[in-house]
């Protein structure tokens, strides 16, 4: 008896669940968006959309579509005039005069030289506490103002009239024009900031001068930008709307690309490459990227202060195996610190032992270790620190095996989360460690600067070589680009001989781009402004 009654109950439940699923499945497809909408897997939630408070590529990719600096990027990442139509430079390379384009903010108010001046004053003001302000120290007075040693009047930025801006530099820096395309130098609408304070960068409050404006920001759900009809080149912008999804899980985003829910994914896992090349070859975009993956060696350490040990460690890392067998996404083996294709630097100097075969390098490294008083039986133990990441772990394990096999060096792998890792690097609580650097602007100085002794926060190895420092200082004061490059090249030769940092590989950018997207150009800066993109 009871069996029958419960069968009825069961059948009832089943019917309800089927009915429920039926109604859900037949709901019309609300994901089918207008053809002018580009959907981007952003791989991270921005910390802010205020250009003065961002620091990551997942932020600058969005903000860069909303704001236009004095200069900006072309489709291939090269620097072209932006809000400045033209400019002149004084003979000593110090004084820049910019003639602004006649254009407006998205609310119709004209963009003036005063807006640029106010923006620079705002980001450099110590109370603003902008993390990236130091990038602007090329401007005369910027460092003094930012560090509280002088008032805003020290800043050598003058709005001559509404459309003329004059900026004086502390030294001739030929990369200044490229720096101006960086988000730290974007104008911000001073009239809106005065009115709304901190809330100016939210939702419909946001006023900008670029190709798109913010229409919605729901944290962790989506960011929508719509076409800015006031943009000076609006006639050539094809897309109506951009939607950014902040999802970080790379394989989950890949599924959305496969299902056609996302058109561009700005990074994918190396382990998916094989599958992608077989199943979605027309999506895969891999290109050299201005970045270096390196291992700083702590020069205060008793073992590592010996140049012979550093060189032996650097020589025994088989970069061919690392890039071709371990990483397998087209990374470039690094024998120089500055990545190939940086600025007008030409080909970088390379380590003196590049021409040797790996076997010769190992033999030479063993000799060096012997001279330093080590052989395989009494080889030192080195702690190799890295921050949590599948890739860093793979590289560290492979390097440890190479050191062990060639030199008998025992490696203690030390993994911490990213915050702890960089805290340890800063306080020099490490022996060897993993670090990486992606260029802020396309110039060798941006890489070599990491080894200058006055760069207290990023010179992890504590490299302090007077000749190197002098050459970098000379380069900074040199207006002639050829001589300047020459100084930097000499400096890099010293760095590659002394090896405070062992270069391991140069990065590649990894994007998935739907074949429906037109106008995408692979480039070394991995900057792809949406104003040049369209949907077929």
């Amino acid at each position, binding site marked *: 008896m009871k069996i029958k009654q419960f069968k009825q109950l069961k059948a009832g439940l089943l019917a309800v669940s089927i009915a429920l699923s039926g109604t859900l499945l037949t709901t019309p497809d609300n994901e089918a968006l207008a053809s002018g909408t580009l959907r981007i897997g952003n791989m991270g939630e921005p910390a802010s*959309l205020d250009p003065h408070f961002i620091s990551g590529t997942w932020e600058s990719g969005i903000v860069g579509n909303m704001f236009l600096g004095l200069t900006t990027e072309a489709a291939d990442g090269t620097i072209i005039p932006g809000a400045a139509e033209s400019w002149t430079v004084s003979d000593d390379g110090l004084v820049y005069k910019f003639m602004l384009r006649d254009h407006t903010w998205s609310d119709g108010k004209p963009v003036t030289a005063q807006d640029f001046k106010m923006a620079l004053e705002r980001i450099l003001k110590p109370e603003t506490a902008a993390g990236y302000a130091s990038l602007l120290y090329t401007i005369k007075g910027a460092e003094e103002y930012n560090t509280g040693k002088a008032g805003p009047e020290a800043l050598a930025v003058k709005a001559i009239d509404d459309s003329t801006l004059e900026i004086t530099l502390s030294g001739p820096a030929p990369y200044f024009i490229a720096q101006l395309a960086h988000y730290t130098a974007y104008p911000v609408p001073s009239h809106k900031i005065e009115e709304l304070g901190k*809330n100016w960068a939210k939702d419909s409050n946001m006023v900008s001068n670029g190709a798109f404006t913010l229409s919605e920001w729901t944290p962790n759900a989506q960011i929508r930008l719509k076409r800015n009809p006031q943009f000076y080149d609006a006639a050539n912008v094809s897309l109506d709307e951009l939607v950014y999804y902040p999802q970080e899980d790379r394989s989950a985003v890949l599924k959305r690309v496969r299902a056609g829910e996302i058109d561009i994914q700005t990074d994918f896992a190396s382990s998916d490459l094989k599958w992608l090349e077989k199943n979605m070859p027309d999506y895969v975009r891999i290109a050299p990227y201005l970045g270096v993956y390196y291992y700083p060696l702590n020069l205060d350490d008793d073992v590592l202060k010996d140049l012979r040990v550093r060189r032996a460690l650097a020589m025994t890392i088989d970069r061919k195996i690392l890039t071709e067998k371990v990483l397998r996404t087209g990374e470039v083996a690094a024998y120089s610190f500055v990545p190939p294709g940086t600025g007008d630097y030409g080909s970088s100097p390379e380590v003196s032992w590049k021409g040797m075969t790996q076997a010769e390098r190992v033999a030479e490294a063993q000799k060096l270790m012997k001279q330093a008083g080590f052989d395989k039986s009494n080889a030192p133990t080195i702690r190799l620190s890295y921050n949590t990441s599948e890739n860093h772990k793979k590289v560290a394990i492979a390097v440890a095996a190479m050191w062990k096999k060639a030199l008998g060096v025992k490696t203690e792998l030390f993994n911490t989360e990213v915050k702890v890792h960089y805290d340890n690097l800063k306080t020099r609580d490490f022996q060897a460690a993993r670090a990486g650097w992606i260029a802020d602007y396309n110039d060798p100085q941006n890489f070599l600067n990491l080894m200058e002794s006055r760069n207290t926060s990023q010179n992890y190895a504590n490299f302090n070589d007077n000749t190197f420092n002098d050459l970098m200082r000379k380069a900074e004061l040199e207006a002639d680009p050829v001589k300047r490059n020459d100084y930097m090249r000499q400096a890099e030769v010293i760095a590659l001989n002394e090896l405070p940092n062992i270069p391991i590989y140069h990065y590649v950018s990894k994007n998935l781009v739907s074949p429906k997207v037109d106008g995408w150009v692979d480039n070394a800066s991995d900057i792809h402004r949406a104003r040049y993109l369209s949907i077929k």
Partner: protein
Amino acid sequence: MFSYILKRLLTAVPTLLIIITIAFFMMRIAPGGPFDQERQLPPEIEANILKAYDLDKPVYEQYFIYLGKLLQFDFGPSYKFRDFSVTELILSGLPASFQIGGLAILLATFIGIGLGTLAALYQNQKTDYAIMGVAMTGIAVPNFVAAPILSLVFGVYLAWLPVAGWGDGAARNLVLPVISLALPQIAYIARLTRGSMIEVLHSNYIRTARAKGIRERLVVIRHAIKGALLPVVSYLGPAVAAVTTGSVVIESIYDIPGVGRYFVNAALNRDYPLVMGVVIFYATLILIMNLIVDVVYSFLDPKLRVSG
């Protein structure tokens, strides 16, 4: 009853204070600070930032500043998401988490109790084995395995439902996350219900009810279930708090804008105010849920009824 609830609420205040204090100092002891990152800041700029957030003051002083602001319900700004305050972040994440978590718990409660009861009634028969087999699998398969498989099958292969995304809470976007979140809960609840139901069905008062000639269906629905639900209810209290505050796994796989991810990410980012915010929020919810459980208990079990 009211004085009992009031008493419980009053004892909750010192409990919360202890939790706040422990969490506050544990966070500060953890190595690495909110502004340590790949792009190291020049010392002067770091000093500017630390000053802006009072982080240059001694820790005990920061603690009292924090408590003072809490009294005014000011949870402070998020260090990581500078444009939002902690209150704004938690409030904006709540609807999604409550919606998904609430639906998952409802689904899990009904299906779990139903299946558990069925299994108990057919104890040691095929239905029982089938249900418990599925339940064991549900418990054993973690949701970071189940969720990607569900989205691969229903999103990519069959293309019935979106792979991920919130879609402003549209029903089709809710199905997969709700199911993924409910699966292990269904399994737990089914097992709990089965166990206690078997016990209750063998108890004296059920025998009495049957002896009186009450129909089996009524015996189960009117008498047995009530007694069998006690352990389920005490499980549901903390489970509701845990499930409705979101799950970092489900939220990152399905890209749900909930609060769950803050539990992990805020701690990794050393976003002190956000960590404190979610800790306080979660602790309060647990305290409230436990109180509700105790009140419901007194209704289900006359032996426990508290007087006045």
